[in-house]
């Protein structure tokens, strides 16, 4: 491994240190005798001699003695500039020299005096973080776990917390999203790196303190009293043939402070792009990832998605025009320090080839990969983790080549999915508050509790009866109760259920559970949701069993349904669209599962695609209106109106969210505003643009509907009922007002819709659970008016307030039908 061993500069003192340690460990006869490892790294450096600038390299050497479990007891580090013939090593450490991030029993840092200022902080971070990654892979240890092993739980709390929060955000350890096809030259990998400093003012660093823990010095960054840590997780795609590198995602967070109170803040996208460009020589456009909350409200994102410059919208460079102060520039340098090592580590993960000197440009990578023995590539860590082609084919339901009837047969003959072993107990203290909050938001956006809470029952304890055209499906208990809930579900089992609709025991879930949408969710969102659900209080509640009639009670048939209709691919952002649009689409198509109600379904309950997307469906006996250029809305929906409606449950130009939409809005009200704006932005983009002035005029005209002449056409009874019962809240004028909003019938979608169901629902049952309390309440009139009166009232409202629409037929029986439905 020590390919450069001969080049290591001998320093007498350090050798003695090593020798003495060797003796020690022999003397103690420890079973895990110390192992040694040394590596050499290079970093390009621009030196300034007088007026002449020259490029040279910094030589960075790391040598450790370590146990078999990876515990590095000694740490020797030497740095010098390549052109210096005689290394004049200086044991003293000057400001700006490598900081010891990790704790070892013995450390020795030697940086050439003349090189101390020329070598940037990133170089030291690159050497250190690459080395630890190499050691971890050699010992088959997780690189993050190995780092945490060298950070003290008490004194390095802030550093540990930063690592924890960033790796959680990046779903470190999870499967890499969107598997590349086996035949493709592209391979995928992920790397981690970390850097930072603890400010312990006034402590001079002596580099050779035997047995003592390192004391860190500051670089004079004027942020007294705050530790500062940065962690990067980089996802790369590498083309094995051309050496091209595509950085797909960067999760980078800066943390400070103490565990518990720690908060990770992101980096501006342009900084990420700058750092990546320095390491790869390629300019990528970076922008907030689609699973990043809070896009557009000024906070720097933690997770960024990158694309090759020129293809994507140029929206990420907004912040660069400003000139930076030297302090800011220094902060930025520090924050970008782990970038090179994270990329190198990701390259190794993808290809099995270690790159020990930046830049990682296509030509160098191509040559290195061409020189590498083919076994290296096959042994790349990411390749080893990848399930075999055969297994993926099976997991994807690839039982193909048969006609529809045979699919069912095949499904009932072939063995079903395997159960995933139960886990005994899960340590919920593992997850950071930030992850739990993300999980809460995801649960709110996905309205888990709406379907998984029985009326009057405990939240998420299941038992809600969902009426489907195929029978009643009862929702399951989502609380972490071991017997009746998901307490024994591992993350793998949870993610499989969410993405593939397969329960932990291997049985298929009915697609009433919208895993078809949840498959779009990103890995880190899925993990955060799991963390949140598993951290809730367990509730022992065994919901009723779902018993659909034969043959639907054969759950294996769902495998065939999945094969026909379920697309397991995760969300892929559209580079030509804005960050906000992508965020909105991700929420709408993914966890928000809007299509579950608003997209029409075919005869066997699958959402139709293509032009039918979001053009209106049904839910729980309610009509879910089209979200695309809806003809039922008297005034076209603008982005602002959509936002009002989604955020507050009321749009003055359209009406109130009621029925199954009310709890959806109640959930959206707890999300960051920018997420709801993104959803409104995306949904509005599906329809032709709306001129705000034109629609405001249309709204003004439509709201003043006259009933002149209607009374002579047999609407007299309906008019009287309306005046007596409805007008107090719904007339255009009159009264002194009342608590809540005043929805006008002339603008109301439920009045202009083709079906009277939604209007009759509200007339009979009122709105006793408004989306948000400030909307006010409506009493139900089901016990006051009989079906004939209901029909008269609805006919009158329709004739007066939707004059362009044909009158509804059979209102009396429609009203009677609704009444017989259990509500």
């Amino acid at each position, binding site marked *: 491994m020590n390919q450069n061993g001969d080049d290591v500069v001998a320093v007498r003192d350090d050798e003695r240190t090593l020798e003495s340690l060797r003796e020690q460990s022999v003397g103690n006869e420890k079973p895990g005798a110390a192992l040694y490892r040394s590596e050499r790294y290079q970093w390009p450096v621009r030196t300034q001699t007088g007026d002449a600038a020259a490029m040279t390299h910094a030589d960075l050497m790391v040598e450790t003695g370590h146990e078999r479990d990876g515990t590095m007891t000694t740490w020797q580090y030497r740095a010098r500039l390549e052109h210096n013939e005689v290394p004049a090593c200086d044991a003293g450490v000057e400001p700006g020299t490598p900081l010891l991030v990790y704790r070892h029993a013995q450390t020795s840092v030697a940086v050439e005096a003349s090189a101390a200022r020329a070598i940037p902080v990133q170089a030291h971070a690159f050497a250190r973080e690459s080395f630890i990654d190499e050691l971890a892979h050699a010992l088959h240890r997780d690189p993050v776990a190995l780092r945490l092993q060298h950070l003290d739980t008490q004194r390095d709390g802030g550093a540990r917390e930063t690592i924890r929060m960033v790796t959680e955000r990046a779903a470190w350890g999870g499967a890499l999203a969107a598997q590349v096809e086996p035949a493709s030259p592209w391979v995928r990998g992920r790397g981690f790196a970390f850097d930072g400093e603890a400010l312990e003012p006034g402590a001079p660093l002596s580099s050779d303190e035997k047995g003592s823990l390192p004391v860190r010095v500051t670089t004079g960054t004027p942020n007294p009293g705050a530790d500062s840590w940065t962690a990067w997780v980089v996802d790369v795609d590498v083309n094995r043939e051309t050496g091209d590198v595509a950085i797909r995602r960067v999760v980078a967070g800066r943390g400070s402070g103490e565990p518990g109170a720690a908060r990770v803040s992101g980096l501006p996208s342009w900084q990420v792009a700058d750092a990546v460009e320095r390491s790869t020589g390629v300019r990528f456009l970076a922008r907030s990832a689609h699973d990043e909350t809070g896009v557009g409200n000024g906070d720097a994102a933690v997770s960024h998605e990158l694309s090759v410059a020129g293809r994507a919208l140029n929206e990420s460079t907004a912040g660069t025009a400003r000139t930076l102060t030297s302090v800011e520039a220094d902060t930025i340098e520090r924050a970008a320090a782990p970038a090179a090592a994270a990329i190198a580590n990701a390259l190794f993960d993808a290809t099995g080839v270690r790159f020990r000197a930046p830049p990682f440009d296509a030509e160098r990578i191509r040559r290195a990969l061409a020189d590498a023995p083919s076994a290296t590539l096959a042994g790349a860590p990411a390749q080893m983790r990848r399930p075999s082609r055969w297994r993926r084919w099976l997991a994807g339901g690839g039982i193909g080549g048969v006609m529809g009837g045979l699919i069912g047969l095949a499904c009932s003959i072939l063995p079903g999915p395997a159960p995933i072993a139960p886990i005994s107990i899960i340590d919920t203290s593992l997850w950071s508050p930030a992850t739990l909050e993300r999980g809460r938001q995801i649960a709110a956006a996905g309205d888990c*509790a*709406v*379907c*998984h*809470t*029985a*009326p*009057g*029952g*405990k*939240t998420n304890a299941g038992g*809600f009866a969902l009426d489907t055209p195929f029978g009643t499906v009862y929702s399951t208990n989502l609380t972490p109760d071991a017997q009746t809930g998901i307490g024994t579900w591992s993350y793998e089992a949870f993610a499989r259920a969410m993405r593939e609709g397969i329960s932990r025991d291997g049985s298929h879930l009915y697609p009433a559970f919208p895993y078809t949408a949840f498959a779009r969710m990103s890995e880190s969102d899925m993990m955060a949701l799991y963390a949140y659900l598993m951290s809730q209080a367990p509730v022992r509640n065994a919901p009723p069993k779902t018993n659909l009639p034969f043959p639907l009670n054969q759950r294996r048939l769902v495998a065939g349904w999945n094969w026909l209709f379920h697309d397991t691919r995760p969300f892929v952002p559209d580079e030509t669209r804005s960050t906000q649009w992508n965020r909105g689409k991700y929420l709408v198509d993914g966890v928000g599962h809007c299509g579950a109600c608003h997209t029409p379904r075919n005869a066997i309950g699958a959402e139709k695609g293509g032009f039918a997307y979001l053009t209106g469906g049904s839910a*729980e006996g309610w009509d879910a209106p089209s979200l695309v250029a809806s003809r039922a809305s008297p005034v076209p929906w603008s982005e602002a109106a959509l936002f009002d409606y989604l955020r507050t449950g009321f749009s003055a130009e359209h009406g109130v969210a009621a*029925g*199954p939409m*009310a*709890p959806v809005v109640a959930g959206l009200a707890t999300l960051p505003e920018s997420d709801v704006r993104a959803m409104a932005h995306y949904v509005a983009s599906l329809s032709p643009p709306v001129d705000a002035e034109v629609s405001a005029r249309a709204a003004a005209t439509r709201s003043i509907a006259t009933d002149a002449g209607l009374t002579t056409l047999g609407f007299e009874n309906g008019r009287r009922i309306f005046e*007596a*019962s409805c*007008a*107090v*809240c719904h007339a255009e*004028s*009159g*009264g*002194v*007002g*009342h*608590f*809540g909003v005043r929805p006008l019938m002339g603008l109301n979608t439920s009045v202009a819709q083709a079906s009277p169901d939604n209007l009759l629902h509200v007339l009979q049952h009122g709105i*006793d*659970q408004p989306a948000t*309390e400030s909307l*006010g*309440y*409506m*009493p139900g*009139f089901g016990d*006051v008016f009989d079906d004939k009166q209901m029909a008269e009232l609805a006919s009158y409202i329709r004739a007066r307030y939707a004059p362009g629409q044909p009158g509804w037929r059979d209102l009396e029986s429609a009203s009677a039908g609704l009444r017989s439905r259990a509500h």
Partner: protein
Amino acid sequence: MAHSSPPAGPLTLTVNGVRRTVQGATTDTPLLYILRNDFELNGPKYGCGLGQCGACTVIVDDQPTRSCVVPASIAIGREVTTLEGLGTADALHPVQRAFIDEQAAQCGYCLNGMIMSTKALLDRNPEPDDDAIRDALRFNLCRCGTHFEIVNAVRRAAQYLRHEGVHESER
């Protein structure tokens, strides 16, 4: 819908400036029931129970509210004013005094709503003309037919308030 019922528990409301707590009420109990049955404030009347007649009108945070159709929970953290909060028999609110002076009651059942709505109207529009008065009280039902007297009372109340300059601060 999967909303869970609001749990029964102590419910604390601020009514006429006084914080009061009721035990064992569910949060979806209509505000009117709590006011009349628990707080013994019988100014607001139970009329239709459907928000149509206006006899139950109270004022929640300056907003006239039909207390029979809103749950008591909406009043949590808000100020509730009932007829009792306007004035007392010894110190009548100008609106109350105007209704007495005009003898605007026959059976009097609707008067709580008429008076509360008038107060809300005059807070917003201190000098309403007859059309404005009729439009404002259009959805307060009176079965006895004292509509003329009621309109006169509103006019007189506006006069009293202008004269006394108290329409902002009386309650």
